[in-house]
């Protein structure tokens, strides 16, 4: 190709008028087993990529991404947990030397040193030697970092009560309690019920929502009379008729079973 003075361009642009032939490089002249990126090597890479993609898609189909119930800032009982790749930081802050008055150490100093060192690694390890065993300090520190991250993550996963967290985050069906109904009046007169199950029947300090489990009216009546688990028997002080009404109301998810209180057809 002609260069320098007398070079021709396309019109008034700076694109050379002489076309460069579109011919791939001939790799046979290179020594060793060097390959061209396109298509030889890329084909291998993409084959690995395709296998990876299949595994990835299987994962997404087998494990749908979790979604808990809508955020409720007032729920103080929830055990928060960051995404798994932040667990090591989260765990670090639980230790005495990195908590309380020393939070700065756990939250800023230690991660700061670790990530700062990572960022500046080329200037901290300036030797020409590249093999990991020939530069034991750098390799050793890196191994230490990796092991401590894995250890902290492991500890955090181990300490977390996964079952409780899953239950706390569960999506609960919305229950609309018909507060106009006769049965709700009856409930409001039962101080011992309200004490545990709350003024709205949806659970309180000591008891769950009365609608939490599916029971028939008969079973509800039996539980009110005889108790269940921590719930003491014989707390209801009203007539049998009232008990009947209340039990049916509870079994019907907070709607008067006889009236037209329910807004579903």
């Amino acid at each position, binding site marked *: 190709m002609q260069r320098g003075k007398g070079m021709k361009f396309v019109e008034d642009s700076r*694109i050379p008028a002489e076309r460069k032939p579109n011919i791939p490089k001939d790799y046979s002249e290179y020594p060793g087993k060097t390959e061209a990126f396109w298509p030889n090597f890329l084909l291998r890479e993409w084959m690995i990529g395709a296998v990876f993609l299949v595994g990835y898609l299987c994962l997404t189909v087998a494990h*749908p991404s979790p979604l808990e119930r809508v*955020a409720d800032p007032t729920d103080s009982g*929830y055990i*928060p947990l960051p*995404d798994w790749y932040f667990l090591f930081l989260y765990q670090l802050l639980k230790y005495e030397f990195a908590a309380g008055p020393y939070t700065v150490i756990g939250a800023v100093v230690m991660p700061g040193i670790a990530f700062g060192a990572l960022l500046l690694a080329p200037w901290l390890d300036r030797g020409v030697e590249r093999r990991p065993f020939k530069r034991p300090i750098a390799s050793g520190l*890196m191994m230490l970092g990796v092991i401590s991250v894995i250890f902290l993550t492991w500890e955090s996963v181990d300490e977390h009560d996964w079952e409780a967290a899953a239950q706390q985050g569960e999506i609960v069906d919305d229950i609309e309690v018909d507060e106009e109904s006769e049965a709700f009046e009856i409930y409001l007169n039962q101080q011992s019920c309200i004490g545990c199950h709350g003024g709205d029947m949806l659970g309180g300090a000591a008891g769950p929502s009365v609608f939490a489990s599916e029971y028939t009216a008969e079973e509800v009546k039996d539980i009110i009379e005889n108790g269940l688990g921590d719930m003491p028997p014989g707390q209801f002080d009203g007539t049998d008729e009232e008990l009947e009404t209340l039990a049916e109301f509870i079994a019907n998810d907070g709607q008067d079973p006889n009236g037209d209180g329910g807004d579903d057809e």
Partner: protein
Amino acid sequence: MLQKIYDWVDERLDITPMWRDVADHEVPEHVNPAHHFSAFVYCFGGLTFFVTVIQILSGMFLTMYYVPDIIHAYESVYFLQNEVTHGVIVRGMHHWGASLVIVMMFLHTLRVFFTGSYKKPRELNWVVGVLMFFVMLGLGFTGYLLPWDMKAYFATVVGLEIAESVPVVGGFAKALLAGGEIIGAQTLTRFFAIHVFFLPGALLGLLAAHFIMIRKQGISGPL
């Protein structure tokens, strides 16, 4: 026909040298898993990029349904996951991709570290790579809040409290991230903007720099 279109464009823009340079560059034997099986460690970078591409695509599609508002964010996520066909897959790809990209990037970082590939003349590329690591962690942190479920909300509360514990600038940093005193409507829109525009923008710039530097310097030689 195709050849004619190609020639037409090539005459005007001289594109042949640009892509021939990428297509013809040498891949040495020591990074090719076909010759040495242990060379599979050199695939982690490529796989990180692959997952990043999936993240960008699935994220783009998710924003078709998602709204960053505390009243409707959760409902929109619930809707796109449960009512829209393949919603479970697209959200799943984004959810699991977030974890995979961290895993792959971690492995890639270890490979580069233990092969000493960050040494002269590749220091700058290492720095850019570590910056990308931070950007990815930032994307993970901001993305976690968006579904506005229990886990999202409380993890963000913890995260911002950690930010607050930084001396001197902590309170300011927290207010800046949360967009106010409480974690609420303004936090969500902020995190959304950071997750969807700011950090991906930074990531794309860094990625371009990363790749250009690799092309310029070539892959590090055998140990």
